[in-house]
């Protein structure tokens, strides 16, 4: 735990320092603390921690170059010695500590409440920061650019522009199959030119980076690996250097290990290898099936981006801007889509609502406490304590509460982060360039939140202390309470605020939850329940030819068919729905006439005839193609049939994807299966889906002048891999594990992955699920807070009005009317809160309208349900105070007077 916390503190340092020195510092600090503890016990350890805390803060400041003094000198001005003022501070803190301890459980609750709200805010901020706000974790990352590669400029040409760029490098995505375990594991790999790490300003943690000599052909090519991979495979990351990493291809020689947390170009890459660009120099880079070769460059010192952009286009005219991309772009890896950004902002808003609810609750409790303590204050004031002292005491007590809350919040945030990142889909946590973690920015955010909390929570108490009326307060307590009506009004307002925030959050949570259930309920178009896609990833060295792959697939097919738990099975040639089998840009011709619109996306699945039965996809018209059908027999989706042959019988009609492609004949029509190109409401008009018998992907007929393109770049063999996919309908979903076991048999030459189609469809809505769970959790929490707030206010009110109630009862009021009076005043608060909250929700829910589906942001049922729930629960929370009030014995109450 301590080392975890220290790791968190290290986030105060800028990343280049942390990556370089962080774990070393942690090791040294562990020894320093250990020794302090041996020498002076826990007190010594505490002192070491304090010293380290200040030291880290100073290190953080000096490492950012914020410290005064010349930067070039390795020296640092000494700290001024703390003088007498410190003792003064200590006594203040001691006083505050006494004050806070005197509050008992209410202090614990306040601390817990603020801590939870702060932790929630920090977590949501961390996610938003990593995915939206933060810059790249490289040295002077704003000087790094990428070039518009649509026209593939040559690296050496860019390198000759030394007036524009201080360094030019490139990278290429690939893959490695690591062996030595049960099965070959696919590991995302990036090929980089030597010197790229140096340009980014990140050095390997152990070993070295790439040098030009690594490009020479060798039996074991050099590789730099990720810190986690090094620890997984070799235990001690340092020991990884010099080891060989067995792969299905040649073994890799590990020459370096990157620091923990290093990502390039995104989090999934765990192996980096040398890209021998020189071998391809002169050739343009065209690699089918890959994200392509990307140049990354660092702008020369002092050269503005606009100048580079202009000059580069002048020198290489093909680089002209295309679409919304200009020729030269600052690099921004893993930028999330707008929808997700909006969602993150909505979550930040929800977290802020939660924090405000917690603030309102704590302020209200503090005010009640201040009321109780007002006599003590008044006596202190009467004895000559200046008003300033009282205000300072209030401020210090608030500060202490918030400080305790920060400590707890840090622990909660660390624990919560693990839960959050384990729940999020990999494409969110690993897709970005910044890991979602608690860095110094999160710490600053949390500190800012804490200061805001402190101000908001202390202000009313401070104001009321400053104004406290000596005479009133010195009178009997009840009267004092009655006299400070202003505070009671403030507390009521605070309660109304808590209820209002809770309503906003509840409305948001309910809207998201309804959206998610609606999304899950969207029809897939087939009977996908119980159907699993099982895909094998095959290393190219082990399965070099289609024949070898077919041989494997046939064997597995036989085993799957004979398994009693499998009702039906078919082999797919491409990914399973909801992924698109094979998509291409098309200029279709329908019955030899160009279609309108002229350009569409063709979505093609290559399937066996039993695909349709396995998936439960109903045949609407015609027949399923059989083994004797030519490869141009097509089964089209009913949407495509409507699109091109509206109303007419499409059987026997012809179409082709593009004038250069063979003509296909329609033999059957099936229903539409939802795929990733569809919108939430159904297929788009800009694409059409059809099925073809298994065959090599449609080949473009050779046209004269078509083959003059440059030869494709020779990608290292381990970058290409094949996959085989099966769809299996299981009798019982629980049998998937057993089925997978028989499938593999003793063969360990490939990697398997299985997923139920329903889960695959649901995973497409992971973001909505995330928003739903987070907002619902916040809403539930705010709801409880608001209810305890109502309970507290009502209980306090009843306690303060015991005399009044006694008098009323003595004058003839019966118990029921007393209960009703208490319940009524509670209901007034809640109704105000519900009304205000609903109004605020109506205004703010429009911001999340684009993220909702199947439910309107102003959906009346949602608002009514939330308001009814909150009013009912509030009355329940008031039951106990009302009961207390009704049990007041007028005789006893009046006797004490």
């Amino acid at each position, binding site marked *: 735990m301590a080392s975890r916390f220290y790791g968190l503190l290290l986030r105060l340092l800028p990343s280049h*320092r942390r990556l370089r*020195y962080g774990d070393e510092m942690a*090791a040294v600090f562990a020894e320093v603390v250990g020794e302090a503890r041996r020498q002076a016990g826990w007190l010594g350890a505490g002192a070491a921690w304090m*010293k380290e805390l200040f030291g880290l803060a100073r*290190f953080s400041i000096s*490492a950012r170059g914020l410290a005064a003094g010349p930067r070039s000198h390795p020296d640092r*001005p*000494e700290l001024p010695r703390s003088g007498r003022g410190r003792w003064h501070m200590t006594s203040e803190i001691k006083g505050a500590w006494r004050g806070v301890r005197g509050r008992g459980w209410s202090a614990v609750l306040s601390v817990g409440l603020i801590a939870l709200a702060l932790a929630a805010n920090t977590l949501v901020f961390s996610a938003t920061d990593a995915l939206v706000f933060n810059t790249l974790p490289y040295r002077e990352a704003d000087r790094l650019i990428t070039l518009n590669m649509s026209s593939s400029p040559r690296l050496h040409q860019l390198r000759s522009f030394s007036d524009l760029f201080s360094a030019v490098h490139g990278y290429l995505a690939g893959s490695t199959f690591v062996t030595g375990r049960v099965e070959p594991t696919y590991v995302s790999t990036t090929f980089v030119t030597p010197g790229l790490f140096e340009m980014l300003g990140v050095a390997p943690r152990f070993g070295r980076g790439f040098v030009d000599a690594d490009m020479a052909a060798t039996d074991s090519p050099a590789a730099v690996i990720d810190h986690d991979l090094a620890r997984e495979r070799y235990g001690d990351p*340092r020991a990884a250097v010099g080891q060989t990493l067995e792969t299905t291809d040649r073994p890799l020689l590990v020459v370096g290990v990157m620091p923990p947390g290093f990502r390039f170009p995104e989090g999934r890459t765990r192996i980096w290898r040398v890209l021998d660009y020189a071998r391809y120099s002169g050739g343009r880079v065209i690699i089918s099936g890959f994200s392509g070769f990307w140049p990354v460059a660092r702008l020369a010192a002092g050269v503005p981006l606009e100048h580079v952009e202009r000059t580069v286009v002048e020198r290489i005219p093909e680089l002209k801007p295309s679409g919304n991309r200009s020729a030269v772009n600052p690099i921004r890896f893993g930028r999330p889509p707008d929808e997700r950004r909006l969602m993150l902002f909505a979550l930040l808003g929800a977290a802020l609502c939660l924090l405000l609810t917690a603030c309102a609750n704590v302020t209200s409790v503090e005010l009640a406490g201040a009321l109780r303590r007002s006599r003590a204050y008044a006596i202190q004031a009467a004895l000559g304590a200046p008003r300033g002292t009282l205000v300072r005491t209030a401020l210090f007590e608030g500060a202490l509460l918030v400080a305790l809350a920060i400590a707890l919040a840090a622990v909660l945030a660390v624990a919560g982060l693990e839960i959050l990142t384990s729940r999020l889909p990999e494409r969110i946590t690993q897709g970005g360039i910044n890991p979602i973690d608690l860095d110094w920015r999160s710490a600053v955010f949390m500190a800012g939140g804490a200061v805001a909390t402190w101000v908001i929570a202390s202000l009313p108490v401070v104001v009321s202390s400053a104004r406290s009326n000596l005479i009133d307060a010195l009178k009997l307590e009840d009267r004092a309470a009655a006299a400070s009506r202003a505070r009671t009004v403030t507390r009521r307002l605070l309660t109304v605020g808590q209820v209002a925030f809770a309503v906003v959050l509840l409305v948001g949570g309910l809207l998201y939850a309804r959206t998610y259930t609606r999304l899950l309920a969207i029809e897939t178009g087939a009977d996908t329940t119980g159907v699993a896609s099982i895909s094998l990833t095959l290393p190219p060295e082990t399965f070099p030819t289609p024949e070898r792959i077919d041989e494997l697939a046939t064997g597995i097919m036989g085993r799957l068919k004979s398994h009693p738990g499998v009702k039906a099975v078919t082999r797919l040639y491409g990914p399973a729905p909801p992924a698109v089998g094979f998509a291409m840009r098309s200029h279709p011709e329908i019955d030899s006439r160009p279609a309108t619109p002229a350009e569409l996306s063709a979505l093609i699945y290559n399937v066996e005839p039993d695909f349709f039965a396995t998936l439960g996809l109903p045949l609407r018209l015609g027949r399923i193609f059989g083994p004797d059908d030519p490869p141009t027999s097509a089964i089209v989706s009913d949407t495509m049939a409507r699109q091109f042959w509206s109303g007419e019988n499409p059987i026997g009609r012809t179409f082709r994807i593009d004038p250069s492609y063979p003509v296909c004949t329609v033999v059957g029509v099936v229903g539409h299966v939802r795929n990733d190109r569809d919108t939430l409401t159904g297929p788009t008009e800009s694409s059409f889906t059809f099925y073809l018998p298994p065959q090599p992907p449609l080949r473009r007929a050779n046209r004269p002048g078509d083959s003059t393109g440059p030869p494709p770049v020779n990608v290292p063999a381990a970058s290409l891999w094949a996959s085989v996919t099966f769809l299996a309908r299981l009798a019982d979903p629980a049998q998937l594990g057993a089925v997978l076991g028989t499938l593999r048999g003793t063969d360990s030459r490939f990697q398997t992955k299985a997923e139920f189609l329903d889960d695959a469809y649901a995973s497409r809505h992971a973001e909505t699920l995330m928003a739903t769970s987070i907002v619902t959790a916040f809403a539930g929490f705010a709801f409880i807070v608001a209810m305890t707030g109502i309970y507290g206010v009502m209980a306090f009110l009843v306690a303060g009005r015991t005399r009044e109630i006694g008098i009323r009862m003595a004058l003839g009021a019966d118990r029921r009317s007393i209960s009703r009076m208490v319940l009524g005043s509670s209901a007034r608060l809640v109704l105000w809160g519900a009304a205000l909250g609903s109004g605020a929700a109506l205004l703010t829910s429009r911001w999340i309208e684009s993220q909702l589906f199947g439910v309107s942001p102003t959906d009346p049922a949602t608002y009514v349900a939330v308001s009814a729930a909150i009013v009912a629960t509030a009355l329940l929370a008031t039951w106990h105070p009302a009961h207390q009030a009704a049990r007041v014995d007028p005789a006893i109450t009046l006797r004490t007077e």
Partner: protein
Amino acid sequence: MPPPSRPPGALSPQVFQILLSLADGPRHGYAMIQDIRERTNDEVRLTASTLYDALARLVDQAWIEESDPPDDTPDHDYRRRYYRLTKIGREAAVKETARLQRLLDMAREKKLAPGRNRR
């Protein structure tokens, strides 16, 4: 702004002690802290952050550099890294020692310090 108490060019006690600590040969971080504390009788106590604040800048300045652990170290903590003085670092330490020596000589001439003045 450097504090008025230290003339320009002078090293802070921490930095000078780190350089002294590495004068015998490579050391890792915690060994430096221990060595400095023992040598100065607890007067200069560094903690992880103060040590690495200085180390980071010394590395930037190339006064010190990372080195392989000495051959005889039975060391299994992979997080430990060893540092040694570079030529520039050694020169800086020598220069600082000379400066201190000059000061001491001056003090001796004024009979502020015990010992013989060799000049």
